[in-house]
């Protein structure tokens, strides 16, 4: 099981990075959605103990690690915030600069 889980994480990271490097801003933004979800999975994986029941106080013996769940929740919200802002930027950039191609957004260089 561990193996499957780890492989999933790896594949998702790979796909995310590939998506991130597309020449298309929209796709690249989607790449971050993938990456952030992948990192949430990874956070779940580093939980201190592999529980079988939700983290409630009634049976703490087999319960899963509550702390990482809290961390993941926070991470989800935060990354959603930046994701929304990123989408907004993609949108405005594509309108103002008249292109949605990553490589065409290169006015700043020297």
């Amino acid at each position, binding site marked *: *099981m561990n193996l499957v889980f780890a492989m999933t994480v790896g594949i998702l990271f790979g*796909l995310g990075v590939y998506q991130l490097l597309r020449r*298309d801003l*929209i796709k690249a933004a989607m790449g971050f959605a993938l990456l952030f979800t992948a990192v949430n999975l990874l956070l779940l994986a580093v939980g201190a103990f592999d529980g079988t029941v939700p983290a409630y106080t009634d049976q703490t013996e087999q*319960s899963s690690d509550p702390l990482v769940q809290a961390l993941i929740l926070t991470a989800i919200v935060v990354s959603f*915030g930046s994701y929304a802002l990123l989408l907004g930027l993609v949108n405005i950039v594509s*309108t103002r600069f008249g292109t949605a191609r990553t490589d065409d957004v290169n006015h700043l*260089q020297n």
Partner: protein
Amino acid sequence: MPILLLVVGMPFLLGMTQHIIQRLNGRMNTGWLASGSMSVSFVLLLTIAYQPVIVGQGALTYTLEWLPDYGLNLSFYLDSLSLLFGLIITGVGTVVFLYSGYYFDETDERNRFIHLLLLFTSAMLWLIFSNNLITLFIAWELTSIISFLLIGFKGNKYASAREGATRALVVTGGGGLALLVGLLALGSAGGSYEFSDLLALDLTEHAWYIPLTLLLLLGAFTKSAQFPFHFWLPGAMDAPTPASAFLHSATMVKAGVYLLARLHPVLGDTLFWNNALMIVGLTTMLFSAVVAVRQPDLKGLLAFTTTSKLGALVALLGVPGGYGVKAALIGILAHALYKSALFLSVGNIDHATGTRLVNKLGGLWKNMPITGVVVIVSSLSMAGLPPLLGFVAKETLLEAFVYDPLLLAIVFISAALTATAGYILIWDVFFAKATEEVHFHPLHKPLEVGLLVLALATVILALFVTQLLIPLFTPLIPVEFKLVLFPGFNNVFFLSVAAITTGLALFFLRNLWRRVSEFSFNTISVYDRLIATSEWVADQVLKTQNGLLRHYLIVIISVVMAILLYGGLVQDIFSMPSVELGTFTLPDLLDVMLLVLAVGAAYASVRVRHHLNAALALAIFGYAIGGVFFVEPAPDVALVMILVETLATVVLIIMIGRISAKQRAEAMEALDRNFNNRAGAFASIRDITIAVITGVSMFAFALIALVNRDNRDSIAVWHLDNAESAVGVTDVVSAILTDFRGTDTLIEIAVFATATLGLLALLTINREAGGEPEDPIEEVTPAKISIFTPMIQVVASLVFPLTLIISAVHILYGANAPGDGFTAGIVSGLGIALYYVVFGYDYVNERFTWLRPVRFVVFGLALALINAVIPILSGGSFMGLVEYAPGLDFANLKFNTTLVFEIAIAVTVFGGVSLIMETIAHPTQVPFPTDARRTSTSEMPVIVQQPESEFEQA
């Protein structure tokens, strides 16, 4: 001893107060004031130094603490050497300041100049009197800076002045930086930053001797304009003439010589030292003398004779056994006197005739006899005729090199050429017939009279050289020496006579010589080439900033992954004790299926070309992951994950809808990997490689984490045990979120609110700026994609109240079941989102007049913060837990800070979500007034500037 402090500080204070004095008394000429103070300092120096230094041949020190941690003390050291320089500075200064008082025509120019010159004088005196290496450096750099300002004095008129100034600063200041390293190395080598301690040591055997000496010499040579750094000095002639006289002949350029003389006992007289000084010094001497004669500009001629003399001084300090020191000291004095006098005279000539070119001048004797006398005396002193101080200097100079024919030859030629320069100054300027009529207007008397003092000094010091100078020099000269005006008819005497006559011969052949010496070797070009090279390198460096985001990301990712693999992962993977991959139980089957679904969806979202389909695939992926979380089991996470995923998808789709189809089509074309052309093939292979590497390393990462996961002790255990007892909550996750790590959540909603506000700002900043889009965007805003079937509308309008109920439940019972304020906010926000999608922007705006998202955000944040502060009032701590209504038990709810916090979260998130929807659903889309794609970085884009533009909430 504080008198020394006064001597150093007085010019500074005067310079600082000078403008005020000028304001108080408008007609007053501060030149007199400054000159007076200089003469006072001169006398003061003599009086305090007479007993202990001249008679007692000792040294005075005076120390104030400044920055002891760095060994930086405000300490002074007065011995014969510094006394000699101090007297030169104050003495010459007296004349120069008087002169500057009348040199300028506009008063404010004069004041600015005297101001700077006074500051310089302070710095210079500080330099030579400082006992501390670091204060020496400080003063050193200060002199460089003020010299920069003086050279660029007319910088607002002439570009040449600016360039000369920068060049001088770069050379001297840069050398100064090397000097700093050298001095600090010297200090830590000698164990003290004070000269008074160092002079007792001999560091010629120290391990750092070569490097630190090299650095110090670099500093000294740059400052004293030694070959190949000499070019800055002729370039510095754009400075007003009094500055050239004071800084660039008498004082500042001698700072390097001073340093060498000062360090001679500590580091001097080794093979390295002697060779370095000899080679550099003699090269400078000969080279400058050769080019000096051909200079058309009088100041240029003087500048090159100056560098020549400086070369001689440096070389003298490198004569083995210290046999050159005597000549060096005499030379310093003699040169200071005659060269400053000559510069000032040239200033007079320039002032009177309006030109400095030799071939335009002539026959000035009848017009300006006093200047003539000064020039004759000084030039002959430079040429080395008796009975003048220059004669003594030249005698001792030749005497010092008599031991080696080759060196002697070099010195001889240079001396002869210097003499020629002197004759040119006298004859061509004052007696030769002028080629055309020389314009002349009379001068203020002080401009001429002041110079007589210097000329007189040249004579008197020569006549009483023995009585006056021997006591001063004795402690400085390591060898037996005698010093008289006329040593008798020995071969040295005949040598110097020969030099003088050769000079005369060369004077008659001067036009021939000018043509002969017209070889175009010029180290400025070397300097410029150096600059050009560094600029080329810089351009290569800047090419990496190529504006391509993907390249940046590629570099970053691959570097990090490389470090990660090399630095840790590989070892950890192979050093894992027993890789037991865990068991595979039945519930895992569902998990695996979900994971596979997730991977498939993710792959689809990567491969699918059309954006909307990709977005849908992404949504499926998100739901699958949510399912994984649910199975894991982490119900809270699963819930939030699914909700956020829904919201994200809505936002993504609307955003995609707002981007014009044309651009999306272009972007999609850019997606196609084309292996037929090499670049495309390379690019896609590179991307895939990076992706694979990242994936593999993350796989290893996760595997290590998972395999070593069990029975590790973690702070989470404490959370599990204490959740109920401490906060009375059974859902440990929400206990952590709202209590144990409540502040995280507080900041988290702040982040969320900030993001939404940023989005608002982003989309509203240019809303009122009109203009037609260059690509007309077909409006795909919700107003168009909304589906107007009555059925859906009914559903939608039913959904929203429902969501509100759900939210309420989440808030109230989130403590003991999955879900909390955040989910509540998202759920109700989704209700609003549905409205926007189904009915469109305008409808929602007129239907829900109460919906002012920013207010919700403000209210939520304020509530959260206040609620967080309240516990403090009741003696608790920030984000602490307080029961608001302890007695009240209604539907087993606890009315405590946690509940309020949940409500605040819900309100904020609801506000944020509806703010996002409200902003992105806004139909108008205003592009930039002008075409953005034509702007290149070289010309920054135009901005519609409305200083008083107002904003109102959209």
